[in-house]
């Protein structure tokens, strides 16, 4: 029982991360109908930037403080992500308006390849570490209930906490700010939104920035946990089923989907994995999402698609 709960918690933790990345997907898709395959690459680039700048900046400016280094690095990395977002909108999206979804998907594939290359070209391609002073030591909870207590990694807990906070913040932001409303308007109907004077391009830049931010945070958390390297990019791919499950257009869907996948993954890995030789969390999420798709093509919270003739 205790073990089960531990796994469950572990799942929820990574679930929050998935939710975070999933959010990136959803926002971009809502706003521009782009299924942003480059999300993973963005995580990689962001993490790389964070990792390297947090080392380089102190060297350049010659100071010791880890905290300052991290803050500056974060700022620079965030800035970089924003610039990227702007460039992507400028150079790619605006030339592909009203293209078919699959075309856009392929475009983001291209972007993701480019970012992979760029990131490693500029920041190097070996394994780097990020140290944002996350508590590494485990913590035993509910010792009263289970003897020996539940082993919970504080790191995960904080990570989850941070993720949760960011998710919450974003959710609120899009619920209650003007930009949020504008975004939702755009999501509902491009032409209409434009006709009432909502600047599509600006909205796009914004959502890509936000997605970049999500990527950065996710990258930091992941990076500090497993170290920053190329595999991060593919790790992010695991967040895809999340949005499929949650429905491409639903923010809550992304969050809940994230949690479901997170838990499902861990549980399956622990309980099914051994039976079939392990390592199944890579595809389990996908198959889960896929099976789900067959019965509800628009996902948990997505709107039903009616094609008129």
């Amino acid at each position, binding site marked *: 029982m205790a073990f089960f709960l531990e796994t469950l918690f572990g799942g929820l933790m990574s679930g929050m991360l998935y939710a975070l990345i999933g959010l990136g997907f959803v926002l971009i898709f809502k706003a521009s109908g782009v*299924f942003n395959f480059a999300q993973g690459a963005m995580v990689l680039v962001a993490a790389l930037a964070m990792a390297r700048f947090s080392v380089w900046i102190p060297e350049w400016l010659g100071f010791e403080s880890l905290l300052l280094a991290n803050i500056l690095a974060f700022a620079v990395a965030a800035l970089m992500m924003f610039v990227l977002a702007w460039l992507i909108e400028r*150079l*790619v999206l605006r*030339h*592909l308006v009203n*293209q*078919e*979804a*699959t*075309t856009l*998907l*392929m*475009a983001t*594939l*291209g*972007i*993701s*390849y*480019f*970012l*992979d*290359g*760029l990131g*490693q*070209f500029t920041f190097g*391609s070996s394994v780097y570490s990020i140290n944002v002073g996350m508590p590494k030591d485990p913590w035993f909870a509910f010792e009263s209930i289970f003897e020996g207590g539940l082993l919970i990694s504080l790191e995960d807990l904080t990570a989850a906490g941070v993720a949760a906070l960011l998710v919450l913040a974003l959710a609120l932001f899009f619920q209650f700010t003007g930009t949020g409303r504008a975004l939702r308007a755009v999501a509902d109907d491009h032409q209409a939104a434009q006709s009432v004077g909502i600047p599509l391009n600006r909205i796009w830049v914004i959502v890509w920035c936000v997605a970049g931010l999500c990527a950065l945070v996710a990258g930091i958390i992941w990076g500090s946990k497993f170290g920053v390297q190329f595999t991060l990019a*593919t790790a992010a*791919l695991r967040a*895809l*089923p999340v949005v*499929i499950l949650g429905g*491409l257009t639903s923010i809550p869907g992304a969050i809940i989907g994230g949690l479901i996948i997170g838990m499902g993954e861990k549980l399956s890995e622990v309980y099914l994995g051994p039976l*079939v*030789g*392990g*390592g*199944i969390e*890579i*595809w389990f999420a*996908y*198959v889960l*999402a*896929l099976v789900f*798709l*067959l019965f509800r*093509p628009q996902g948990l919270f997505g709107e039903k698609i009616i*094609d008129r*003739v």
Partner: protein
Amino acid sequence: MFYRENGQFKTSYRADQQIFPILQDRVFIAILLAVAFVAVPLLSSDYFLRGILIPFLILALAAVGLNILVGYCGQISLGTGAFMAVGAYAAWNLGVRIPAMPLVLQILVGGAFATLVGVIFGIPSLRIRGLYLAVATLAAQFFVDWAFLRVPYFTNYSSSGSVSVPALTAFGLPVQTAVQKYIFVLLFVVVFTLIAKNLVRGALGRQWMAMRDMDVAAAVIGIRPVYAKLTAFAVSSFIVGVAGALWGFIHLGSWEPLAFDLNRSFQLLFMVIIGGLGSIMGSFFGAAFIVLVPVALHSIPRWFGVPLSVDTVFHIEHMVFGALIVFFLIVEPHGLARLWSIAKEKLRMWPFPH
């Protein structure tokens, strides 16, 4: 400019519908084949054959397969690598378990297995479209990667997890030297390209394209989406599977699942996009392009005496490809094939602009 079409009139539908209706084109193709089958084996070095031509041919074949699915039927797939893997491992297992089975048959049956897997993962395409389908095929990719990594049966319990093929012979002839392998592959490529061409210009091809261009209208004129889509998946993954088997058997010789991972899928997708969606010839252009760019990136700096480290080249390569994909999607969605056909039209119209 070189076209002289007067007097090339067609007196039968057969003549009118041949692949190359214009004499000058037929001549060109004839010369091309002659070069490929005679001149190249005589003149080119082992490195050129092993390092460039053979991979080019096999990948081109795979691209042809993928193009049928993506370019002609409009069903996006990110799982091509997986289907190649199935082809390769199936063929390999057949070889191991039924030693008597001749090479060509192994490869074909390998393709058949790929077909099977392809159709299974194609079934979702009946319910789901576009992006969702992409994810489904991605699932195929991950699942297959995992299966060949973690299910020891497929690798015949080899400790390293990698498999390798013995010295090959086909029809009693050795397929071992570079030239032999080249000819062997070339034959496959020519035959399957012809088959693919026949399909896309026939009734089935029209059904695929109809589904791609306007699925509602297609249904209204009596095209069964199930049939159209699944045949596309089947044919596509068969050809891809065969290519996979060739890749493993002829090009690599020994390999592990990594040889067919997600990047392979992307690489093929890029070939199809850059080469030209919905064009058999485009698949070859795309393959040539993707095979040659890394070579160029390696050698050009060396000529200028600034040798780059391997992974620098690798990163630049990524950037170049990424940028090119975006470029083509924006500027010429029909890829190199379209540029080619435009050039051809210009030559036919010459000296007139249109």
